[in-house]
C-alpha cells in the first residue's frame, strides 16, 4: 500500500516537473511563430493573363529585324519580371503578327490555347535613322471597345534605344493594368565595380543591360546612393585622409563639390525629399550618424554612443525615420529612430546584422543577417525582410553563399543584392529576385557589389 502511494506521488511530481520545464522552454519556441505578413506578391490566380505578340516589322532590312528582335525580347522580359502578369507562353500564341488594330482578330487571342485577357502588339520600322514603334494594348474580352491605349515612340536608331522603347512601353502597360503600381523597366541600378586594385561606381539598367562606368577616380569608391530625382549620386571614396563623402552629378557627368570633414565619412543616404542626406562620420572620434543638407552644410549629429554607427537609410514614405546599424552592444544590430535621433528602437536581437534598405511603402526593412540562432542557423549571411511594426521576419536566401547589400525596387516587388557563392570578395556578383525570394538570377558577372536601385 505505501509503495503504491509513493509511486503515485512521484509520477505526479514528475508530470509537474515536465510541465514546468515545458513552460520554461516555450520562449525558445517563439522563433517558430508562423504568422505571415502581406508582401507585394501575387499568386498565379490573381495575375492578369497577357499575350505579347511579336511586333510586325514595317521594313524588310536586316537592321530593322535586329531592332525588332531586341525590342520583342526586352518587352517580353520586362512584362515577365513585373510579377503581376501571367504571360502566355510563346508556343501558345496564334501564328498571326498583327501590326495595328484593324489586323487584330480578338477571337483568335481570347480563345484557347492562348486564352489571353489582354494583348500587347504593334509594329516597328526604321525611317531616316530613327526607330518608330506603334504599340497597342487591347482588352481581348471587350469586342466592342477593345483598345486600352496606343502609343507611338520615335527615337534615334540604335540597339540601346530599341531596348529603351520596349522599357517605356512595358512601363506604360504596367501603369494601366498594375493597380496603382509603378513600372520598373526604366529604373537603373548603381553599383561598385572592381577594376583591378581599385573600385569605381558603375551604372546599369534594372535588367543588367548597358553596364558602364560613371567615376574614374583611381581609388576605392563605394556605397553609391542615387538621389530621389536621379540627378546626383552620393558615394564615399578613399582619399589621403581616409574615406570621404563625394557627390557625382549625372547631369554634368562629373564629381561636384562636397565639403570634406575630419575622420572617416561613409555610407550616405538620401531623404525622400531630396534635400537632406544622412551618413556615418567619425569626426568627433567615434563613428556616429549625422544628417546634413544635400550640399553638405548644416551637419548635425543624431547618435551619441560608443561603438560604430553606420549605414543609415531613411523611411522613403515619410522621411521621418532612419534605420541604421550600430555596434553599441557588440556585434552589429539593426535599429530605427526618428530623424532627429529620438525614439531609438532595436530591431534585431542577436547575430550579425548589416546593410538595411527600407521598402517604398515604408512597412518593411530588408537587411543582411547572419542570424546564428533558431531554425537554419548557423547558416551564412542571408537577406531577410522584417515587418517593422511587428518585428516578424522572413528569410529570403538560403545556402547560396554570403549575401549582402539588399536594395528595394520602387515597385516594392523586387530586391537586388550582392552575393558571393564561395565567400571570396572577388567573386561577388549582383543578383535580383522577387520579394518572396523566387525568380532569382544574376545581373552581372564577378566583381560587382553594393547595388542601389533608383527611386523611379
Amino acid at each position: 500500500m505505501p509503495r503504491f502511494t509513493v509511486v503515485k506521488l512521484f509520477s505526479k511530481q514528475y508530470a509537474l516537473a515536465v510541465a514546468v520545464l515545458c513552460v520554461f522552454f516555450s520562449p525558445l519556441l517563439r522563433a517558430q511563430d508562423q504568422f505571415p505578413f502581406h508582401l507585394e506578391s501575387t499568386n498565379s490566380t490573381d495575375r492578369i493573363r497577357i499575350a505579347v505578340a511579336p511586333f510586325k516589322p514595317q521594313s524588310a532590312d536586316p537592321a530593322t529585324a535586329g531592332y525588332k528582335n531586341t525590342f520583342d525580347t526586352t518587352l517580353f522580359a520586362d512584362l515577365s519580371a513585373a510579377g503581376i502578369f501571367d504571360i502566355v507562353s510563346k508556343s501558345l500564341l496564334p501564328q498571326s503578327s498583327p501590326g495595328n488594330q484593324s489586323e487584330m482578330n480578338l477571337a483568335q487571342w481570347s480563345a484557347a490555347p492562348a486564352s489571353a485577357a489582354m494583348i500587347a502588339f504593334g509594329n516597328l520600322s526604321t525611317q531616316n535613322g530613327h526607330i518608330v514603334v506603334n504599340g497597342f494594348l487591347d482588352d481581348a474580352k471587350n469586342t466592342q471597345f477593345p483598345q486600352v491605349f496606343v502609343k507611338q515612340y520615335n527615337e534615334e536608331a540604335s540597339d540601346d534605344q530599341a531596348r529603351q522603347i520596349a522599357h517605356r512601353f512595358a512601363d506604360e502597360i504596367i501603369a494601366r493594368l498594375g493597380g496603382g503600381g509603378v513600372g520598373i523597366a526604366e529604373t537603373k541600378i548603381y553599383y561598385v565595380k572592381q577594376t583591378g586594385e581599385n573600385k569605381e561606381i558603375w551604372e546599369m539598367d534594372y535588367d543588367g543591360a548597358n553596364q558602364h562606368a560613371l567615376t574614374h577616380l583611381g581609388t576605392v569608391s563605394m556605397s553609391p546612393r542615387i538621389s530621389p530625382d536621379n540627378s546626383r549620386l552620393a558615394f564615399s571614396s578613399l582619399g589621403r585622409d581616409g574615406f570621404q563623402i563625394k557627390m557625382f552629378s549625372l547631369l554634368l557627368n562629373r564629381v561636384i563639390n562636397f565639403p570634406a570633414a575630419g575622420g572617416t565619412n561613409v555610407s550616405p543616404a538620401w531623404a525622400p525629399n531630396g534635400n537632406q542626406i544622412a551618413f556615418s562620420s567619425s569626426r568627433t572620434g567615434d563613428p556616429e550618424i549625422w544628417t546634413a543638407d544635400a550640399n553638405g552644410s548644416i551637419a548635425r549629429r543624431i547618435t551619441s554612443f560608443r561603438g560604430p554607427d553606420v549605414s543609415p537609410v531613411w523611411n522613403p514614405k515619410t522621411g521621418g525615420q532612419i534605420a541604421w546599424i550600430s555596434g553599441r552592444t557588440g556585434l552589429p544590430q539593426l535599429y530605427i529612430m526618428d530623424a532627429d535621433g529620438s525614439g531609438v528602437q532595436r530591431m534585431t536581437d542577436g547575430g550579425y546584422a548589416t546593410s538595411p534598405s527600407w521598402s517604398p511603402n515604408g512597412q518593411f526593412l530588408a537587411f543582411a543577417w547572419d542570424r546564428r540562432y533558431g531554425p537554419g542557423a548557423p547558416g551564412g549571411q542571408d537577406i531577410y525582410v522584417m515587418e517593422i511594426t511587428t518585428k516578424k521576419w522572413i528569410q529570403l536566401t538560403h545556402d547560396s553563399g554570403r549575401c549582402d547589400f539588399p536594395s528595394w525596387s520602387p515597385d516594392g516587388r523586387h530586391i537586388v543584392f550582392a552575393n558571393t557563392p564561395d565567400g571570396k570578395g572577388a567573386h561577388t556578383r549582383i543578383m535580383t529576385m522577387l520579394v518572396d525570394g523566387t525568380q532569382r538570377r544574376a545581373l552581372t558577372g564577378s566583381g560587382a557589389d553594393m547595388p542601389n536601385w533608383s527611386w523611379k
Partner: protein
Amino acid sequence: MSSYAHPAPLQQKFSSGFAGAVVLHVAVAGILIGMAFLHPFQPKHWGEDAASAGAIQAVMVNALPLPTKAPPIDHSVLASENVTKAPAPPVKEKTAPPPTPNDLLIKNKVDTKPPKVAPKENLTPTKHPLPTPDSPKATTGDAATQLPQAVTQSVNGTATVTVQNRSFGNRYAYYLRIVGSMVTKNYNEQHPDPRASQDKSVSMLFDIQRDGTIQNLRVETASGSPTLDAAAKRALLEIDSFGPLPEGDHITIEYKFDYHHP
C-alpha cells in the same frame, strides 16, 4: 485482527509513530531549506527585454491561394433575427372533481366545453433572403438594360462590381475587371462569421477618383450580419489605389458581395 481492539498499545504506537512523523517532516523541511540555500531559484526574465527586442520568424504564405490570416477573435454568435415562437403549452382541461362518498349526486349543469387546444402555430422556418443569382454579363456590353458588371468568384462567395456609368463600363471593361480582382483578393483574406453571414449579401457604394483612390465609401444595403459588412468594408479600405482612371474625373462603383461558404 485490527488494532482498534487494543487501546493500550495504541497509546504507545501513537507516541512512537508521532515522533517518527515529526522527524520525517523536519527532515523533509530541512532538505527543502537546504536546497533553497544551495541552489537558489533565479527566474529568467520572461517576455521581451526592453533593450533587446524579440524578432520573430514568420513564413511567407502569400503564394498559397488560401486565406492565410488568423481569424479575428470576435466570434459573435448571432441569433436569428426572427425568433420562432415556441408553441404554447396545452391548457389543462378542467375536470369535475370525483364525487366523494358522502356527496349527494345532484344533477348539475355539466360543463361540456370542448377541450381547449393550443392554437396551431405556423412552424415553418423563417425564410432567409436567397441570393439573387447575377448573370455573368461581364463585359460584352450588348445588354443595354444591364449596367456593366464584373463578377468574380472567391473562396467566400461571389463579388459583383457594377459601375454606374454605362459608357465608362462598356469602354473600359478591363478596368472594372482590375477593380473586381483587387477587391476579391482582399476579400479572400477576410473572415466574417460563417453562420451569421451564410447566404447574406451586402452592397457598398464608393467613388474612384482620377488617381484611382477610393472616396465616399458607404454601405448601400446592409446584409444584417455585422461581420460581413465589416469584412466588405475592410476589403475596400485596404486598397491604396486601383491605378489611374483611364478617363474622367471619378466614377461611382457599386460593389455587391454575396457570402456563401460551403
